[in-house]
């Protein structure tokens, strides 16, 4: 009994030590946002005195911050809708149809997993410029959706395959078209899987930096990661203010994580084990 108690105590201690490396920087950020930059650099460890809220309130009352949040939300939602719609249709074909070249096309998509998006960024820029999509949210949405397709198709296909063929045959006997079956029966059944891939797509889009940095030079369209980088450049020595900015930028991500934790982790592990 005592031995197991000691073991449990040492386990907790170990987790706390490891966990402190994760938590301390985050706590430091939240607290530092309440300091003046002078306090922050003379005493990085101590608590602020007095607690200064103007860093946070100043940012919250600025239009730039909210516009960036709005842009990020809009781009993430549009990317996700497009990704999931296109991937669900394709995954349906891959899971349910037999057609010549099926394996070739599926392999083509699956190979997309191996291409780091950074590889395509430069030619994408050139291409988007010739399409007139620079400084246009579509210039970020379309490529993001394209790069999210492989993982989304793979996860959805393996889910669609678990739904018995009898169901489809019965639906078709009852006069349902292929698309009708897909739309009215398969998609509602696939809601958990759709949730998972949606959450994955939202998080990827929300955190994307490289592509928006290149495509969205106009501040009107800047997303939150690009906005952070700009803000850092602008207030490079006002560390407390910069920290307050990133703390506020963390809030939507953390809130989303709290709501969608299960789906996100399900998606990552499915994605990781499926390829």
């Amino acid at each position, binding site marked *: 009994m005592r031995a197991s108690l000691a073991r449990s105590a040492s*386990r*907790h201690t170990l987790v706390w030590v*490891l*966990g402190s490396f*994760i*938590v301390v*920087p985050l706590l*430091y950020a939240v607290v530092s946002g309440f300091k003046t930059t002078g306090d922050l650099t003379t005493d*990085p460890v101590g608590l602020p005195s007095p607690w200064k809220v103007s860093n946070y309130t100043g940012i919250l009352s600025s239009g730039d911050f909210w516009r960036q949040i709005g842009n990020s939300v809009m781009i993430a939602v549009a990317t996700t809708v497009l990704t999931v*719609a296109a991937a669900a*249709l*394709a995954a349906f*074909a891959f899971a*349910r*149809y*037999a*057609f010549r070249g*099926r*394996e070739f*096309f*599926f*392999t*083509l998509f699956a190979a997309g*997993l*191996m*291409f*780091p998006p950074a*590889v*395509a*960024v*430069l*030619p*994408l820029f*050139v*291409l988007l410029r010739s399409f007139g999509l620079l400084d246009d949210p579509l210039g970020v949405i*379309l*490529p993001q*959706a*394209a*790069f999210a*397709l492989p993982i989304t198709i793979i996860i959805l296909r393996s889910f669609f395959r*678990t*739904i*018995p*063929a009898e169901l489809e045959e019965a639906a078709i006997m009852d006069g349902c078209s*292929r*698309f009708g079956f897909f739309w009215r029966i398969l998609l509602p059944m696939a809601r958990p899987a759709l949730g998972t891939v949606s959450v994955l797509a939202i998080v990827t889009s929300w*955190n994307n930096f490289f592509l928006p940095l290149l495509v969205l030079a106009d501040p009107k369209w800047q997303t*939150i990661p690009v906005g*952070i980088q700009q803000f*850092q450049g602008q207030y490079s020595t006002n560390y407390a203010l*910069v*920290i307050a900015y*990133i703390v506020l930028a*963390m809030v939507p991500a953390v809130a989303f994580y709290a709501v969608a934790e299960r789906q*996100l*982790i399900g998606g*990552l592990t499915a994605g*990781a084990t499926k*390829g």
Partner: protein
Amino acid sequence: MTSTFRGSAPTDDRPRPAVRAPRGRARGAPAGRRLRGWMSATWFLLPALLLFLFFVLIPIFVAFYTSFFTWGGFGRPEDFAGLDNYRKLAGDPVFRGDLWRGLFLVVLSIAVQLPVALGTAVLLNQRMRGRAVYRAVFFAPYILSEVIAGVLFGIIFLPGTGLADTLVRDLPLVGGLAGGWFSDAGTALPTLFAVMTWKYFGFHMMIYLAGLQGIPPEVLEAASIDGAGPWRRFRGVTLPLLAPTLRISVFLSVIGSIQLFDLVWVTTTGGPTHSTETMAVTMFQFGFKRYQMGYASAISVAMFLISMVFSLLYQRYALRRDLQGAVTSAGGRR
């Protein structure tokens, strides 16, 4: 077959009840329906194919094409340079340094980050109070963007006045690190690795946890009845059964290191004196700061080829059994 609704997920095409498709490439639908199947399958595939073609495949071909030109990025590339860009690339010490730095990050990830993540996963797989909270805490940095992590740690590692210096300055052994971090060419890359670890540790831990949960407890019990202690159980049962998950996490680490950009750009932009520069950063520098698009395209192509060759070899030799139906093994059957 009718009884299993969603229970046991088949890993392969299920046999059809009444009419069986002839064996061959086109399985999964009765033969008579095949042609119609192909026609309507096209409509289902079209949106995804178009997106993929225009924004993934064509850009990669464009990169190949422009890499053979000396091109400033405006107008059409006309100044054909043959393999000049690649010759220059091969002799460029910064690019060669990128390769070494990438390798350094990969080796450190595999040697340090992954084993610790595995240990933590094993720890948090046991029954303990607050387990869910611990997991959530370790995972939290993963959902924050690399930009947030980069800006935060840029401030934490400020020489002289940052949190890291204050904490470390008076300690033995590590006290000498104070003042260095990102600002010293000798310590910048390890510091970058530390931030990467902070950001991605929880992700690897989480996929290991998922893998651990897939190990049937009976197997471990059986080993325990046979007299295997905890270490032997880990070595003999857990580790081999976790191998597919480990291989995937190594794969993701390597691909991630090849394309590392955001974190570097926000913290050091590659400096001091190229000590943290990655291939993606070099590419960005040449493409968008110096307008040498042809040369930058050659770097893109090099990144593509490196990740491609690595992926193929890795798939061929390490992932073959894990990725059923994904890439190498067409349709899950060989």
